């Protein structure tokens, strides 16, 4: 997509993230971090400060509520001494808990994990012990979906995050859990998850984001980097359940190498306004990226999802399915783009957005796009927006199920074909429960 030229008259907006705040942030970092990392943070701050806030004519922000994007009134939060022990009901091989940007606890639950060379640690530790790996993959991919300013803010103010490395040929049976909390009004957090899956390795990571209080005004500017080497199988499940007053930006980047497969499923429940960008780059033959998302939008929530599937090599495959259920006065935006590069023949790409309207006041926007420059491809996309199918409703009612129970069943059924894509039953059940909790509150 061609970037629009920005007239210089646009004023840059830094909000609470002034040059002084950035200096204070640098001063708060532990000593001994690599110089290149500090340099990159400085450069990122410059990009952030000089970039304008999105405006109405930015195609990448079409339909977004721009008046809700404010960076004022936030500050790096103090460290906390306790976090809720959220249980999501799955067995795990390791667990990392972050609170207000800092590590709160780290538990390796599978005793063989470290012996097999699997690293589950913080980014700060990884910067010291595995600087080459971090340097190669941390925020190394381009920001192409419109949030370059917020990605730069993330890089500049990133304190700590999760680092997972699975060596070649190692298969991790149980998921690795990462829990990230924001606590206190005005807290700004910058969570990051970096996963490097070595050749022919296999791992599942569950990333949970939540607030200690439902009503605190917070800012979350997160990102992740998923890298699947040749033949690796990486499953990533993100659950966004920030405070109902939070403003959230999340930029996810996935790189899939030869014959590797990445499955990501993002569940969007929390925040007042949440923007989620997801980039998948299929870089070598046989690469497969499956991009799944489920959103339950209620009240005045806005979920703004932007995706990009780039097929850079022949014989690659991507499959995207984003489902939104809209209640009350909520809004959703889905903007997806499939790009097939000129040489990426035999591409198989799919993109689908389904919106279930459960309220007469909700609004669903759908922008499913394609840019195809190779001819021997199979690319399709579809988008539908509708209410519960009256025929299905009638069928259930004719079997003696009352209308509200029928609607609930059909709504859960709407999500079920996404959840079914997960190979772990335990995870499937856990996610289903989480959705139902939100539905019933």
């Amino acid at each position, binding site marked *: 997509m*061609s970037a629009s030229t920005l007239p210089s008259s646009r004023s840059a907006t830094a909000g609470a993230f002034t040059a002084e705040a950035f200096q204070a942030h640098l001063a708060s970092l532990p000593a001994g971090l690599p110089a290149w990392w500090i340099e990159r943070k400085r450069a990122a701050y410059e990009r952030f400060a000089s970039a304008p806030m999105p405006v109405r004519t930015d195609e990448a922000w079409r339909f977004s509520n721009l008046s809700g994007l404010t960076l004022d009134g936030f500050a790096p939060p103090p460290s906390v001494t306790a976090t809720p022990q959220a249980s999501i009901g799955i067995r795990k091989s390791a667990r990392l808990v972050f609170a207000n940007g800092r590590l709160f606890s780290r538990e390796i639950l599978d005793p063989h994990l470290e012996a097999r060379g699997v690293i589950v640690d913080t980014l700060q530790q990884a910067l010291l012990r595995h600087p080459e790996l971090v340097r190669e993959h941390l925020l190394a991919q381009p920001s192409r979906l419109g949030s370059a300013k917020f990605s730069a803010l993330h890089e500049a103010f990133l304190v700590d995050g999760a680092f997972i490395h699975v060596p070649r040929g190692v298969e991790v049976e149980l998921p690795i859990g990462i829990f990230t909390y924001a606590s206190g009004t005005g807290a700004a957090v910058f969570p990051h998850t970096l996963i490097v899956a070595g050749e022919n390795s296999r791992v599942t990571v569950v990333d949970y984001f939540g607030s200690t209080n439902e009503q605190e005004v917070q800012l979350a500017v997160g990102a992740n980097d998923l890298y699947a080497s040749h033949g690796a199988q990486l499953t990533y499940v993100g659950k966004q359940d920030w405070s109902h007053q939070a403003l959230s930006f999340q930029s996810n980047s996935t790189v899939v190498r030869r014959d590797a497969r990445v499955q990501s499923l993002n569940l969007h429940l929390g925040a007042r306004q949440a923007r989620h960008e997801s980039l998948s780059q299929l870089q070598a033959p046989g690469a497969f990226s499956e991009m799944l998302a489920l959103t339950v939008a209620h009240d005045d929530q806005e979920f703004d999802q932007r995706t990009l599937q780039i097929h850079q090599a022949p014989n690659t495959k991507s499959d995207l399915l984003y489902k939104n259920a809209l209640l009350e006065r909520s809004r959703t935006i889905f903007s997806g783009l499939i790009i097939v590069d000129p040489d990426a023949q035999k591409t198989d790409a799919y993109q689908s957005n389904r919106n279930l309207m459960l309220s007469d006041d909700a609004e669903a926007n*759908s922008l499913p796009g394609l840019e195809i420059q190779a001819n021997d491809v199979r690319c399709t*996309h579809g988008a539908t927006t509708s209410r519960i199918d009256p025929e299905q409703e009638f069928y259930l009612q004719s079997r003696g199920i009352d209308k509200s129970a029928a609607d609930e069943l059909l709504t859960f059924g709407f999500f079920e074909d996404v959840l079914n894509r997960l190979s772990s039953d335990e995870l499937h059940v856990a996610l289903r429960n989480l959705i139902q909790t939100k539905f019933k509150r």
Partner: protein
Amino acid sequence: MKKTSDLDSPAAVELDEPVPTANPVAGIDQTRGDFKYDVAYEFDAGTGLNERTVDYISSVKKEAAWIRDFRHHALKVFRAKPMPTHWATRDLENIDFDKIRYYLAQGQKPKRTWEEVPDDIKKTFERLGIPEQERKYLAGVEAQFDSEAAYSNVKDIVAKQGVIFMNSTEALREHPDIFRKWFGKVIPTSDNKFSALNSAVFSGGSFIYVPKGVKVAQPLQAYFRINAENFGQFERTLIIADEGAEVTYMEGCTAPKFSTSTLHSAVVELVALKGAKIQYITVQNWANNVFNLVTKRGLAHEEAEIKWIDCNIGSRLTMKYPGVVLKGRKARGEVISIALANDGQHQDTGAKMIHAADETSSNVVSKSISVGQGRATYRGQIHIPRRLKGCKNNTECDALLINTNSRTDTYPAITVRGDRNYVQHEASVSKVNEEMIFYMQQRGLTEGQAMSLAVNGFINDLARQFPMEYSVELKRLIDLEMEGSVG
């Protein structure tokens, strides 16, 4: 501003005059439109655009003050609006508005018989086969040569029914009571940069009024011809079908291929009052140095139906998204679109459906074919606002890529509010099925023939909706374009 013709030698250039073909429809085969005659223009607004250009056009046309004011306001809007390159192709930046001639005409009043049309213009249209078609099956014809209609006539039987069919200048002068009410109302001046440009310098086009209950049995046709180099054609069309009326309108267009680019920027407004039906058929075959930037929109009242059938074959860049505002209950809008993009062409087409009443329905079917390095783009907008019920939209876009370096894009935007409506969108991109080609080759067809057959099959269900003469010609053209595209 001068009223001379010193730029053009009055003598016609020697041409290898081929015999006008028996082809019933002009302008589909690109080669058929690629000729020009030198014409002595009586009226010429010069090169470039400013207030004086607008005054010149308005004075020549002896327009009412309100039209002149409308033009001046539009010029301001045009200047204030930026090029829409934040979403559209940068190729737009290659249009040099200072090098375009905005008004060229040989006379002010269209002729009612072909005998009266000056020879140099008449032979152009004869070569394109227009008079012949008129005799055969059209209820009325208007033939525009550069800025003004050279010929305009409607058959007596249709005129007796009260159907008005004339160019924009005549219509605004003779029937302001009918046309002023809707002029610029469906597409406001400020809709986009090019609708503003058209509003400032518009000339020619068809204004049609079909009275209550009148069903015009045969189609009305307009033919647009660009003859001069560096020229901009800005016709303005307004069709009003009164309650229960029905009308089909067809337009065709050609231009010779010049080394410099030419601009065509029309505004077409349709108004279908209660229960009326308008079908608007376009076969666009400009030479492929023409920037074709057209705004087309219809307003459908209660139970009315507006159908755009749009076929884009020519031009360097076409940007055209016919739309329907579904204003009345049970109104229906449809866009059927075929685009063929060959080397050096970008067909950026689509549809816009704005639902504004309950139980309105819309249907968009778009098929594009990219050949060689051609690029076809679909852009769509579907909008269903709050508190409506029973609205339906169906959109299908299929793209066919012929060569390895062909390109296609799809950019739909769909907004739905509320839970009582139903919208579905589907798009696919594919190449011609190899097994299909193999099967046909095995039955003795060459690869080129097999390819033509497959491509014709791809658009067949849409081509059938065109008048027979057009669909036959379309098939022939595809055969021509497919020649040499394989191997």
